């Protein structure tokens, strides 16, 4: 089994058992891609926006995450069926029209289902690994090729005083004398 970031995050036992049952079904021959219709895409998009609601994020990162949820949700026949069933449940609950509060309540009610786990588990990895999201959150990504942060703000926090970086002068005593004293106290307690 190839190890991907997602299958260790989600666990593998149940999905691989399903996959082996439907292993004979060829996705290509079936020509079904769960979640590919525009209605389904909108449902997944809304689900991800509800799971990870960031007013500062434009649609782009959520769209890319939606793509990933659909692609990985069609990796094998078992997943495709799981996706199709989950999307039908969302549609039956009129999820697209729910307010944020009601959409959150609905997702709470399906938390732990295979479909929920797939969408959430994929989204948390893909959304927060999106470079546009990093920019918005203020994370600068790779830094070695820019010379690290030694001259670019690794110590630029100025709302607190400069702290000591050396060990306390009593450090050695604390880690020896104090420990022996405490150990002796405890030994006395045990003996009493």
């Amino acid at each position: 089994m190839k190890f991907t970031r997602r299958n260790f995050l989600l666990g593998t036992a149940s999905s691989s058992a399903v996959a082996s049952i439907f292993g004979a079904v060829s996705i290509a021959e079936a020509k079904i891609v769960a979640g590919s219709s525009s209605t389904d895409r909108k449902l997944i998009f809304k689900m991800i926006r509800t799971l990870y609601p960031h007013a500062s994020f434009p649609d782009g990162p959520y769209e890319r995450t939606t793509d990933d949820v659909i692609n990985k949700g069609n990796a094998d026949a078992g997943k495709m069926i799981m996706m199709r069933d989950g999307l039908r449940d969302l549609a039956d609950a009129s999820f697209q029209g729910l307010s944020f509060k009601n959409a959150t309540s609905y997702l709470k009610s399906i938390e732990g289902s295979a479909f929920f786990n797939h969408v959430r588990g994929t989204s948390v990895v893909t959304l927060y690994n999106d470079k546009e999201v990093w920019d918005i959150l203020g994370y600068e990504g790779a830094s070695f090729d820019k010379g690290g942060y030694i001259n670019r703000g690794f110590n630029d926090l100025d709302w607190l005083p400069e702290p000591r970086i050396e060990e306390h002068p009593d450090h050695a005593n604390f880690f020896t004398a104090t420990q022996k004293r405490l150990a002796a106290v405890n030994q006395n307690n045990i003996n009493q």
Partner: protein
Amino acid sequence: MNIDKNESAVVIIGSGAGGGQMAHQLTKEGIACVCLEAGPHLKPEDYSNDEWSAFLQMAWLDARGTSGSWRVNKDFPGLPTWLVKAVGGTTTHWAGATPRFLDYEFKTRSTYGEIKGANLLDWPITLQDMEPYYDKAEKAIGSTHRHGRPPLPANNNYKVFANGAERVGYQYYATGPYGTNAEPYDGRPGSIQDGFNFQGDKNSSKWSTAVSEIPKALKTGLLDLRPQSHVVQITHDSSGLVDAVIYVDANGDVQRQAAKVVCVAGNSIESPRLLLNSASDMFPNGLANSSDQVGRNYMRHMTGSVYARFEKEVNFYRGETMAGFIGDEVINDPSRGFVGGYYMETLALGPAFLSSFLDPGAWGADFAKMMDGYSNIAGMWLVGEDMPQSTNRVTLSDSIKDQYGMPAPNVHFDDHANDIAMREYAYGKAEALYNSVGAVQIFRTPPYPSTHNLGTNRMSAKPEDGVVNKWGQTHDIKNLFVSDGSIMTTGAAANPTLTITALAIRQGEYLARELKKGNL
């Protein structure tokens, strides 16, 4: 050098903190050895400044099982540990913290007394025995704050951490001791504070056996380093001495290397697994397992993290990841509701990993609010002594096999009541620290897949209590050694790499002496 496969060689299995150090110690003494490393030979230029890419590049992702009540079993059932499969082993990934064990941490059974459910045992060696080797290990690693090595400067995460420490009345805080150069040392440059550390340090300022001991050993011309060589079995002769190791090479071919001495250093999961997978008619419970202690007493440290969001910017991802320590809670004061102590250490993650680990499975508005404030987050890791328990155990899985068809390890772990009490207490103290400097939102993060894996081939004075003697030599088979963190009798509060290094230097000197005397 190339050592003939039919020549009975000194064979080291693994090239991390234990195995890499053994290769250096032996070749330094003129003793040739074969080092078999399961992973590839990654070099600093191969390392990636990207959390997911680096994880997929170097993490040990072979099939494994988990069981028990620990939360890792729920959130990451295929990934009990976060270890590295590459030359350098987990020293490629380690953060760099190098505290020593304290005096009483070598004699916890005597100090703590009988703890229900805990299989405590005093080490057969003391801090006094270890002190000269701690000195050597600190010099090998180049620990800051030690032997004239200067401290690292304060980074942003440390500024929050140390100011909080001061405000809640802690005294024993500093930016080290830490195994990354503040200034050039041992042929490696000073830190450029690039913030990538768990991914392997492209700048080589961080000590690892991949950039220090392995290159030094190769330079002697006496090391036959074989990457992508995954050992599946150790064999023995009719007298019960080990005589060869069987491994799968990069092409998938099964090879045999004859051996006069075998040093097992595959970490606390793979080392007991290999001994168990080497069971034979003579040793039906696995090699060196007459005590039935192989695989038992698995420890992973009491861990937890606290991440706090502030009103102003921190940018905690910049700079050395773990260059911040508070030692005030490393005391044994049972009035706190638990025995043993813990360190508080700075920790930072990028958005990719923070989102996955902050509170695995979490979603919704509060979670998003925390992530929205990513620039304003500070973080720390809590790492303390956990109780060895006989039932916390690495066994051979009866259902999962690895890519070579060998039974995979299953890692069973239940937190001891002492571990839980310590974690709750530590969370409270960490929150108080961050609240004292104005935290506006705080998350208590559960343990990650284990990075500190200890105790599964423990050292004991008596053969019936453990697997190896005070030199790391197995009680049952005199030419079989264990050279990694699995030999730790108990885990102490300290991050283990310094102690693994010190033990390996000590074992290397002993083994060299014994070989030269012709005793092995």
